[in-house]
């Protein structure tokens, strides 16, 4: 029984990691700019499509027809050679193999640009407007983003292979001195969890230990005073919006091998991540991370057959149920401060 519970706990970690990463960015935007960003799921989706784009670019190939060789069907053999491999040899092959992690390098600048452009172009004008209008405009932006992606990449999910070396499963049970082959965990999920831990740790360290982060935290606490001290807090908040988009984008990139991305990926995750943010407490970064993992793990437990036999359908609604209960019983969420959005 212990093994089963431990396995479900592990299974919850990677989904929880995705929730935590998205919710972290969402809370960052809310805490700094005070904007309820319904387009954040779309940023996750755009990140995932950076990976798709990068791979499509890497796998551009030349097709030469070789009349001296015949394919098994008797037609002249087509030799396909990826351009990258032709140019860079083995390094190119490795690059194609590791396209998903490698695409993080291009995702960071792209998402930073998208985030800053979004903030400067549109969201900037909505700080003083009611939250309902912020929701509406970002909801519209999310629709636009997903339709643009649909018209470029088509409506079907595009699977992204993980690097061949990272395909198998890790026998975690054996590592911990238990019976072998009972608790195995796919390597890529473990990598996703570690990756998210690094990113989350990085964001917290950035906010805690750099001068920039200190100023941003001060601005979150009292924007006006920081502004009066002669610091251009708006520019820093814009950069924080960019950073939040980068976090969402990276979360999307690394998630592609687990779930083939399609254009409505963002909408699917958006609702869940909002629920996560609310459960954690609006504006609380540790709350968002904790709630992300908590809900991911709860969802994983709820999908156990023993529990489903007891409460049919619980796996479908557990997250929403938790959110409703938390909102009704403790509206500030788990770690939220008093007075945030309690008008």
């Amino acid at each position, binding site marked *: 029984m212990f093994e089963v519970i431990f396995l479900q706990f592990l299974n919850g970690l990677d989904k929880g990691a995705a929730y935590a990463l998205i919710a972290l960015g969402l809370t960052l935007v809310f805490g700094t700019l005070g904007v*309820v960003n319904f387009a954040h799921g779309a940023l996750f989706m755009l990140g995932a499509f950076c990976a798709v784009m990068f791979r499509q670019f890497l796998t551009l190939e030349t097709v030469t027809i070789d009349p001296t060789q015949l394919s098994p069907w008797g037609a002249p053999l087509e030799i396909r050679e990826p351009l990258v491999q032709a140019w860079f040899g083995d390094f190119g092959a490795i690059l194609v193999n590791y396209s998903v992690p490698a695409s993080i390098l291009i995702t960071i600048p792209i998402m930073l640009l998208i985030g800053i452009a979004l903030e400067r172009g*549109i969201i900037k*004008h909505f700080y003083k*407007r009611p*939250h*309902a*209008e912020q*929701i*509406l*405009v970002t*909801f*519209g*932006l*999310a*629709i*636009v983003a997903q*339709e*643009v992606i*649909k*018209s470029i990449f088509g*409506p079907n999910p595009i699977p992204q292979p993980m690097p061949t070396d990272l395909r198998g499963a890790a026998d975690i049970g054996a590592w911990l001195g238990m019976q072998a082959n009972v608790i195995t965990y796919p390597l890529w999920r473990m990598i996703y969890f570690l990756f998210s831990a690094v990113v989350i740790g990085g964001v917290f360290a950035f906010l805690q230990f750099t001068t920039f982060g200190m100023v941003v935290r001060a601005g979150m606490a009292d924007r006006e005073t920081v502004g009066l001290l002669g610091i251009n807090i708006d520019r820093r908040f814009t950069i924080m919006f960019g950073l939040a988009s980068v976090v969402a984008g990276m979360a999307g990139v690394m998630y592609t091998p687990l779930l083939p991305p399609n254009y409505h990926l963002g*909408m699917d995750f958006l*609702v869940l991540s*909002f*629920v996560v943010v*609310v459960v954690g407490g*609006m504006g609380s970064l540790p709350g968002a991370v904790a709630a992300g993992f908590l809900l991911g793990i709860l969802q994983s437990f709820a999908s156990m057959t023993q529990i489903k036999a007891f409460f*049919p*359908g619980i796996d*479908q*609604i557990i997250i*929403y*149920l938790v*959110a*409703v209960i938390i*909102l*009704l019983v403790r*509206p500030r969420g788990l770690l939220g401060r008093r007075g945030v*959005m*309690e*008008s």
Partner: protein
Amino acid sequence: MANFMSRNDLFLFLGFTIVVLAMPIWLAPFGAGYPDLLQRFMIYGIFAVGFNILFGLTGYLSFGHAAFFGVGSYAAVWSFKLLTLDAIPAMIFAVVISGLFALIIGFLSLRRSGIYFSILTLAFAQMSYNLAYSVLTPITNGETGLQLTLSDARVLDAAMGQTLVGQPVPTLLGQQLSGYAGFYLCAGFLILSFFIAQRVSGSPFGMMLKSIKSNQTRMQFTGFNTRPYALSAFVISGMYAGLAGALLAVTDPLAGAERMQWTASGEVVLMTILGGVGTLVGPVIGAWLIKYFENILSALNDQILANFWSFLPEGAADLMVQVTGKFVGDGWFLTLGLVFVLVVVFLPGGVMEGVRRIAATLKRSGTPDSKSRQTQPAE
């Protein structure tokens, strides 16, 4: 009944009635004068009018109204299956059930306001949607959708000694509801809904709702308990949504869970905002515009576009076909999203505010303006 309606209200109501009833005539030149589409105009008009009673008057933004719409559809289809094929019991049943459902959800959700309210309604709607797809399959028939079959019980019909041959279809007092009969049924309900909404927003109750929107705290300090008012508005708009869902089931007796998905809730928000939130006619116009353009734009294809741009030189025409092709057909949602963002940014009051601004400009420039309240669905 001297003060029953002010003269302006009466004119507005009569004008609205005439415009709605004459739709088959004046929409024919725009390629929309056929009953199928007109029925949808009416149904989503009712949905949007009801949504506006909650969002427009009280300012509570619900992201879960599609749940009531879906519940109304399911309730109506079950009434067709179990009781009778007549539309009236089905609609009463649907309105009552969705009203009860809204009472429960509203009672819980209205304990919070602002974004928390939106998230709560969203969570409830997603729960209903997920359950309709999984555990509640015996009631909802899952992905297939709930359909009428010949072997349904139909207790009342059986008691009346009616037997049926062929595919069961809903009727109204024995009349078939295909074609324009269905449209006039829906139109009647839209006019009735509009009338009730007009009465509500002009009544003391409506004033209470508007004051909740402008300053709820002050209302509470002056000693009003605002929650029963907000809850009544929530239930009324839930019943409107249920009625719309039931009418959709009457015209097409097939209920599926996708009607409850949160993007469907988003659609009614779009309609209301696009038309003009808080106005009476605005949401209806928004619903018509969205349904009209959904129908027109998604029917366009590259062939039609090529004809349209054929006056340009060859290369430019191809380019324009390529570019505009992204915005029509399957891509029409992109157009909707862009228009929506532009409306929220530049014209938060929607079409109605646009009309008002134009009217104000014309008045200032000295020409007496006789622009009718009705905008035509062409831009």
